[in-house]
């Protein structure tokens, strides 16, 4: 049987609603739907095969391709990269950057790496105290300057410290900032220019919906994203924002944050996520 446009569109419409309910951004759902239509309309299907199963199967293929094309072995990268490896964490306000840095520090120390943290948020009230408490809890060295000082200088200081003490990894925190504030994005660009981080990790929350597209795109266009971490998956959103971020950036999702404790960080698993969203 030749697949006709009308029947395929009807099934696509139902799948689109499932993706939207899973927090995949409308813009991304449109693009995925277009790709599916192009792959299916006019093609042949065997008589016994149900159309809805065929379309869903094709959707899963498209989603897997999206993730496999950008897969990345974080630990292998760290092992092989010249030390110190400098990782800068960026994102809008409140997404979980500071807490995620603490979790990543624990993961790396569990694998026998030495870590230093740079208190790169010199702006927000209580930011340095917050990361200092995490560093103390984990027994990690923290480099900090006083509140209001230049974040580029703190991070620079941390990198020099890592070089002098032969520390493997520098995890640099930065203040949350709205992607609508050009001066704040410019500040990130300056941090990047001065410190040349090996990886810029975009931290966003799985509890956000369509806005992930705007934020990921803006951060990617101005400072460049090498990979992303999606937090707060334990609040039980479906996790479609990971699809939005992966689609817009073309870069890997490295971890999911699944809680507020130091061990609440799991490696990204595309098959698991796709299964969760499609129910």
């Amino acid at each position: 049987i030749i697949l006709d446009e009308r029947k395929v569109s009807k099934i696509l419409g139902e799948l689109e609603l499932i993706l939207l309910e899973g927090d995949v951004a409308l813009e991304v759902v449109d693009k995925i739907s277009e790709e599916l239509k192009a792959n299916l309309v006019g093609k042949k299907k065997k008589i016994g095969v149900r159309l809805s199963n065929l379309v869903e199967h094709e959707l899963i293929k498209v989603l897997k391709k999206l993730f496999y094309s950008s897969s990345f072995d974080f630990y292998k990268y760290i092992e092989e990269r010249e030390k110190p490896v400098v990782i800068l964490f960026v994102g809008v306000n409140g997404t979980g950057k500071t807490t995620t840095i603490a979790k990543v520090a624990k993961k790396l120390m569990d694998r026998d790496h030495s870590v230093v943290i740079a208190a790169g948020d010199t702006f927000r009230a209580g930011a340095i105290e917050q990361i200092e408490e995490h560093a103390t809890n984990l027994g990690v060295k923290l480099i900090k300057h006083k509140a209001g000082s230049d974040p580029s200088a703190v991070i620079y200081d941390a990198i020099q410290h890592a070089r002098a003490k032969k520390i493997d990894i520098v995890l640099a925190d930065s203040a949350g900032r709205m992607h609508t504030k050009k001066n704040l994005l410019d500040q990130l660009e300056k941090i990047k220019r001065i410190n040349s981080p090996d990886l810029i990790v975009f931290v966003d929350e799985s509890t956000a919906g369509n806005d992930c597209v705007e934020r990921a795109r803006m951060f990617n266009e101005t400072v460049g994203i090498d990979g992303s971490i999606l937090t707060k998956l334990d609040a039980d959103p479906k996790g479609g924002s990971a699809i939005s971020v992966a689609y817009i950036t073309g870069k890997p999702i490295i971890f999911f944050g699944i809680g507020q404790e130091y061990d609440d960080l799991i490696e990204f698993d595309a098959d698991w996520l796709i299964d969760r969203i499609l129910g």
Partner: protein
Amino acid sequence: KLGDSLRGIVRKIAKSSKIDKYFVEEMVRDIQRALLQADVNVRHVMQLSKNLKERALSEDLHPRLNPREHVIKVLYDEIVDIIGKGVEIPLSKQKIMLVGLQGSGKTTTVAKLAKYFKNKNLKTAVICADTFRPGAYDQLSQLVGEHGIGFYGEKREKDAIKIVKNGLKALKDYEVIIADTAGRHALEEDLIKEMIDLEKVFQPDYKFLVLDAAIGQLASKQAKAFHDAIGISGIIITKFDGTAKGGGSLSASKETSIPIAFIGTGERIDDLEKFDPERFVSRLLG
């Protein structure tokens, strides 16, 4: 984009006292997309568009509105029916409690609300009842520090109930007392229980649920859980200075009948506005 497609459709419309069915369907389709893109709950978008279509087609055109304005007016009324026109908080002695998901902007908003009342010449103080988050005490005390706002907290105390009890005694000469609480979500049963216990001890006159403007499809479920637990008086939407449209708050409101009270528009202590339904709806529709 919604405006361009609507202008294109309006050019084809003939004058009549009832509106053209084809025109309404086109417009409702565009509105659906705008609402979905704004993070309104998918189920709510379907309900809203069904109601909108029925009302727009059955109601007579207002003599002074063109067909497009008629549909927008019907939609505006539907939405304002849900979110309300703001919450009038009396300028008198009262206690206020802020709750919400992790990172939604509660601590910052507690400081902003405190400044709001201080500006109206009410003796205002805040209590840090977040015993979980590292640096919570420092964050809130620094935020209210220079503004003549009272502060109570106990850095080493892990029992939030104790802090609230002690805080109420220490701050008895203040007119407005606002309590900051730790972030929590519906699946954290022990934290939901803590919130219920805090509410019993603090006995707030107003309980605000703080929601990030960018919150997605889980907004209505979370709002319902908070409302079922302690009864919410109003929603405060934060981070409206980003690009997020706040559709999640619309859904939270629809699910629980809680009105929207304030909007946070930045990180500074003055970045708090009273809720304006017209501006909210026009932003929602892009």
